[in-house]
């Protein structure tokens, strides 16, 4: 793996953030299976290195836009478990006061402009955020997360054109997990996805989305350049989702083989890979890592219990926030 950072604390934080995402998702899945969570949710498990590698290269004033598969982006951009589980359960203390739920979860105070349930729906928002940065002479960068399936949305081509024309500080981060819902990417995407960005004169990169250091190193470079007005950029991150499209997508062998899932989980898991690297480099011992994992597990368990006991919003909140004051 590439070396991106020299600071031990940064490495350990990246590891912890990935484990926090995996742990959050395991608990969310449990909440679904035990019928405690209303509705459905899309798990980020397997894709942790993408959100963490990218968000660790950003500051709080940098913005992101997230997707229907947004828990990972939310954690990686600095959210806390308590408010996140509250949101999943529709409780008042959730980040969106229970109004958004899983598909709109976001901690806005850390620059997360929201998870979007319309595929590709945030491409304009992210590019607009970058336009504002340029107009106001601010050096923040916006990262637009979306899936491979979202590259089929025409909006992307409109906003890439403007972003390229006006050299906007936006990074389009395509999480290519090989599928959009129950369809393989190659069945819905003609030609090359990176070439589409290149057609607008946008520099495009493909990176192993299971290698957190590679993702982080590339993002750091691009963010630095984007701050100097050298953007926009496009990153295609090759990754994999471990669960079904959503938690209810259990019998999925008709579109994806068990062998394929096993291969990604056993041979390319981003957390396992990074953990061995940390140990091999002498950055952490197995015992230290186990202690970190246990602490995160406890945090999650406590946050779930907290959220379960938390209050629902008062019904008077129903017509609050339709219009801003």
């Amino acid at each position, binding site marked *: 793996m590439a070396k991106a950072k020299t600071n031990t604390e940064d490495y350990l934080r990246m590891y912890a953030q990935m484990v926090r995402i995996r742990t959050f998702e395991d608990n969310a899945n449990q909440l679904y299976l035990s019928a405690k969570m209303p*509705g*459905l949710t899309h798990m980020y498990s397997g894709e942790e290195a993408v959100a963490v590698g990218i968000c660790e290269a950003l500051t709080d004033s940098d913005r992101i836009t997230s997707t229907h598969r947004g828990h990972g982006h939310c954690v990686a951009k600095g959210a806390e478990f308590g408010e996140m589980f509250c949101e999943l359960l*529709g409780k008042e203390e959730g980040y969106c006061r229970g109004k958004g*739920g899983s*598909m709109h979860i976001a901690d806005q105070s850390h620059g997360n402009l929201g998870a979007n349930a319309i595929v590709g729906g945030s491409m304009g928002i992210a590019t607009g955020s970058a336009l504002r940065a340029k107009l106001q002479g601010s050096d923040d960068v916006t990262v637009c997360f979306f899936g491979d399936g979202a590259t089929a*949305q025409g909006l992307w081509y409109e906003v890439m054109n403007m972003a390229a024309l006006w050299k906007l500080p936006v990074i389009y981060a395509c999480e290519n997990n090989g599928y959009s819902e129950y369809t393989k990417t190659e069945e819905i995407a003609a030609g090359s996805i990176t070439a589409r960005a290149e057609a607008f004169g946008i520099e495009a990169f493909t990176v192993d989305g299971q290698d957190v250091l590679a993702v982080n190193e590339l993002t750091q470079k691009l963010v630095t350049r984007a701050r100097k007005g050298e953007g926009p950029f496009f990153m295609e991150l090759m990754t994999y989702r471990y669960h079904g499209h959503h938690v209810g997508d259990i019998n999925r062998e008709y579109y994806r083989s068990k062998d394929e899932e096993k291969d990604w989980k056993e041979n390319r898991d981003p957390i396992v890979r990074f953990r061995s690297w940390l140990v091999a480099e002498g950055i952490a011992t197995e015992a230290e890592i186990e202690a970190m994992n246990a602490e995160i597990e406890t945090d999650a368990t406590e946050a779930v219990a907290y959220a379960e006991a938390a209050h629902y919003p008062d019904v008077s909140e129903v017509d609050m926030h339709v219009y801003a004051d």
Partner: protein
Amino acid sequence: MREITLSQAVNEAIAEEMRRDDTVFLMGEDVAEAGTPFKVLSGLVEEFGTERVIDTPISEPGFVGLAVGAAMTGARPIVDLMFGDFIYLVMDQLCNQAAKQHYMSGGKLTVPMVLRTNMGATRRSAAQHSQSLQALVAHIPGLKVAMPSSAYEAKGLLKTAIRDNNPVVIFEDKLMYQDKAPVPEEEYLIPFGEAHVKREGSDITLIATSSMVQVAEKAAEMLAAEGINAEVIDPRTIVPLDEATLLESVKKTSRAIVIDEGHQSYGVTAEIASRLNEKAFYHLDAPVLRMGAMDVPVPFSPVLEDITVPTPEGVVENARKLCAGEMIHAA
């Protein structure tokens, strides 16, 4: 009579029409092998192949545009739009293109296509997957709009839609896909613009669309226990609208509540109420009342979401007041 689910009814209607007319084809996201996330179209690709059951990329304006063009040149496309909320993405293709070709060409071009989509809240899917947007489409001349209230209507209306020479938008309530109803084995079609009187009554008319028909029927039962006889009418298509049946009923009962799951303001309920006021004013004993979804984006939290939609209890309360001659102001 056998009972089948609304989902099976839709599936049967499409299969029958595809067998009958080989210009009919199906297009949408995950419609083939996956048979849609709601599994409504399962099995069709096995019978008709991927040439006629086409999986598209997530390019709603694109594939709706393709359907318009295919329809103008001799095919009868059925487009599956996975969630009614995505109507916003395809508005130009639907409203500027499909709806206007016949008129703009002085009657020379036609767009015989069907756009099947869904509606309905309380599925805990939050603001972008729960809307009931039929009013948006019904507002545009040139588009027909059907709202099936059970498996029986779903099949009969869809078959009519496929044979219609105009663009037709069908809104199915996504919470009703597994609901069963008696559906004949023999072929039948339900003509557009023919309301169905679901229950006769003399005191008040409840006009309801889609799943709100069930709400109205429950309310009617509860009202019957109090000695109020409610008539329940399902317009089945809101464009064209069977005004005659609605007027006849209201002239008899002299009171009406119109119930639809779209937002209450500027909605389907307002249109119907207004027509009744204009054409049956002297027969009315009370203002016609609208009951729609609350004018808020659909919230995720169950405690909030559940109070945004009309309920049988709410209908009963309003009906009781109307019958008692109390003034009520629509929320």
